[in-house]
């Protein structure tokens, strides 16, 4: 007890030696509206460029579900100066590598390169942003690639199947209803015209935030941005997503059949978007529940009651209100109803009694370590700076995050648990072998 007290008295640990500060990030915005965030870091002779486009599956509608992700693939399939295959060939010849990912909210392009290749990277990006060309032959082979991507994810993880069903039930009007990869028949049927419209609507420079980190000079990044990107004209603001999910007024349950050794379960509660005041309290609640073996759910459900072999929670940043999710893998022989009850019991304890000062301090300490991990690599820096800029409206919020977490009180956590973890606000999904039960 004495030792604990000492730690608590020290309060929040201030990261004095972390070298990167908010002021180290330099920003400029081109005339066409593309915003650049640059962080000089000489630790390795490399750099990266992360381009965050504010378009994801939430911008789609039935008929073109999955198009954001498919489009992400098409961005590698040829433009005016660099034709099909050349984007990758030129980048790799110059020592660079790339990837890209699409979520419900954003499409992010990632380039990793020796700093000597930076001008080439600007040239390649400028070419595809200004003059992508959609080759019908490439569209057809890319359909096969994406169908294989969809199938391999379903083949290798029951979570995809279950997660898709839970989202489809929890969201009945909002576009989070469908999956990022899209419906199989949409993948097979969208047209070149759909793709061209999508490009015009969402790939204007003013719909993109760019982060560059690594062994670069801000002035050089600026010079190259002016030379290659500034001449690309801006476009009209894309139409905002106007669909709002109506409040859920009763528990929803979905059952999915798949042959599995023990059931997989998900429980999702509607929770607010990243910019909402409750974001930090909910994020702490998620860690209290499932971060580490000393967390409430692990210690009760996996260790003591042995009802589950794995339990985790997820609450991530999102443009629109999304789900706070629980994932549980049942232990052999345990009943699904017992598992559900065990989760609700743990939730109820927090709703009634809140959390202890020690638990709160534990999570705050964990958040500081997370912050350090984000700063350990130039990729972590770019990804997180960009994420905070896009989802929270300001990259500085990344550096404020430890302080924001330190402000959260035990009462805040109790309050958000009561506000969001209501029976009528949840969707329960179960995937198991015998769905006739």
């Amino acid at each position, binding site marked *: 007890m004495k030792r604990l007290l000492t730690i608590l008295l020290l309060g929040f640990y201030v990261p004095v030696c972390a070298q990167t500060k908010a002021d180290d990030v330099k920003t400029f915005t081109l005339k066409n509206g593309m915003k650049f965030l640059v962080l000089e870091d000489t630790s*390795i002779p490399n750099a990266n460029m992360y381009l965050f486009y504010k378009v994801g599956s939430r911008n789609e509608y039935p008929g073109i579900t999955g198009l954001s992700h498919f489009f992400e*693939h098409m961005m590698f399939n040829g433009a005016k100066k660099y034709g099909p295959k050349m984007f990758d060939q030129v980048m*790799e010849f110059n020592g660079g590598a790339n990837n890209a990912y699409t979520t419900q909210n954003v499409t992010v392009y990632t380039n990793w390169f*020796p700093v000597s290749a930076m001008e080439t990277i600007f040239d390649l990006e400028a070419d595809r942003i200004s003059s992508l060309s959609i080759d019908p032959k490439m569209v057809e082979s890319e359909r096969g690639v994406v*169908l294989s991507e969809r199938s391999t994810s379903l083949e290798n993880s029951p979570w995809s199947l279950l997660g898709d069903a839970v989202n489809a039930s929890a969201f009945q009007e909002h576009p989070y209803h469908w999956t990022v990869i899209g419906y199989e028949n949409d993948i097979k049927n969208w047209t070149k015209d759909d793709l061209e419209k999508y490009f015009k609507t969402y790939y204007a420079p003013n719909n993109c935030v760019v982060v560059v980190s690594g062994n670069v000079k801000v002035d050089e990044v600026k010079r190259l941005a002016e030379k290659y990107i500034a001449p690309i004209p801006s476009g009209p603001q894309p139409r905002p997503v106007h669909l709002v999910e109506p409040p859920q007024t009763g528990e929803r349950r979905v059952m999915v059949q798949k042959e599995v050794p023990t059931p997989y379960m998900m429980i999702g509660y509607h929770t607010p978007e990243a910019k909402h005041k409750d974001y930090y309290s909910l994020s702490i609640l998620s860690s209290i529940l499932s971060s580490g073996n000393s967390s409430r759910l692990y210690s009760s459900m996996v260790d003591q009651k042995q009802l589950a072999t794995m339990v985790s929670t997820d609450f991530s940043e999102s443009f629109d209100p999304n789900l706070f999710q629980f994932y549980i893998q049942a232990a052999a022989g345990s009943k699904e109803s017992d598992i559900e009850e065990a989760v609700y019991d743990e939730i109820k304890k927090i709703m009634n009694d809140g959390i202890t000062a020690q638990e709160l301090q534990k999570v705050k300490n964990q958040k500081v370590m997370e912050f350090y991990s984000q700063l*350990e690599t130039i990729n972590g820096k770019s990804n997180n700076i960009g994420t905070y800029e896009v989802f929270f409206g300001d990259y500085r919020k990344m550096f404020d995050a430890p302080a924001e977490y330190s402000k959260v009180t035990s009462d805040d956590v109790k309050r958000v648990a009561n506000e969001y973890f209501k029976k009528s606000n949840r969707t329960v999904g179960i995937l198991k072998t015998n769905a006739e039960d």
Partner: protein
Amino acid sequence: MKTAIKYIYSALTIVFISAAAVAQTKPAAFKVPVYQKFSLSNGLTVYLMEQHEVPVISVSAIIPAGAIYDGSKSGLATLTAAGLQYGTKSYSKSKIEQDLDFIGASLNTYASKESSGLSSKFASKDAGKVLPILKEVLADPVFDKDEFEKERKRVLTSLQQAKQSPRNVINAYWDKFIFGSHVYGNSLTGSPETVGKFSIDDLKSFYTANYSPQGSAIAVVGDFNAKEMKTRLEGLFGSWKATAQARKNEAAVAITPVNGNRILLVNKEDARETTFLIGGIGIRRDNPDFVAIEVVNTVFGGRFTSWLNDELRVNSGLTYGANSRFTPLKNSGTFAISTFTANKTTEATIDKALQVLDSLHKQGFNDKTLASAKNYVKGQFPPRYETAGQLAGLLTQMFWYGFDESYINNFQSNVDGLTAAKSKEIINKYFPKDKLQFVLVGKSEEIRKVAQKYGPVTEKEIKADGF
């Protein structure tokens, strides 16, 4: 779950996950930061490297206690490594978890094929709390019986769950198929049949026989003063007593060569796609051509524009990704082409993969391709050794495989030194042409005929015990 990406580079373990480097201009040379190495009187090798960018410390330890020492008790090395955390002389399991979670520290203990390991990361101000725990986890575990029984129940379920995913288990089938009864064929996880019979005494005996400071190493990298850290580690780890005896090097036994193509077909009744590996014996980690092989493999299957990915994905849309990799160990290793495709395109995809392998041998590659691969490998190299954790891992790998910092420091010049003529030799010597080994996980009923086209087929059921 909510994310879809351009490319999964590593559907499977990729060893040559490399990166690249420069074009015509010379990049700044990348060097291993200064470090020191010394031995304690009990034989433990210690590496220390200061890195002050963020106030964290990473620890990596390596112990000669991998799955090759399992004997008939398949999975024992893995359960023993996990068991290190079931409590120690002065800390119960829950005390370890509570203390480490409270300060946001991580701790993993695991077994791999040849060795077992520990990795940990924590804030530098917490070194005084964490290091004594790490010492006891390695040197003074008590192997609590109740905790073991709980873990075993979880493991038995997870072994069944793993078989739901071909990607999770194909490597275990592969190693068994390639190495047969050689200890490199041992699986890391074991099976319900073997794990179900373990007792806590098995873990204790495995620990006593295999965990010892002699032959082990610990690397500490991060925000600390090396002189103070040295004193601290001597005080802590100096009391770790040697118990394990010197053992026969079972991995040094010769591997039986194969006479021709062989196919293992693993039936997964509900499979909609076929997941497969094609290849054979690869290289040892101490192969003098290690770097050159990496460059050549980059062209063949080690990057997005590699011949395999270009042909199987970009040109034909048969798969989401195809790659090739060498997995080197101390005494041997494997080489494999790796991809997956829908049931009905299995034959077309295997044929194409074999054609690409054939053209590697027949055509070789031109100077431009070689230059591109060199640039790529050099350019993507530095981010592999950026964090304290990566550097700690590098130091323990250096210890294990007996290489030194010249691997890193001369990497660029070794890559540059590869000539077109030498790359031809590399292809001939290390990339198989015939006597190919195949492991296919998929729906036998639909792909059996296809499999038979390539050679004699052995069939297994994925639901059968083990690999």
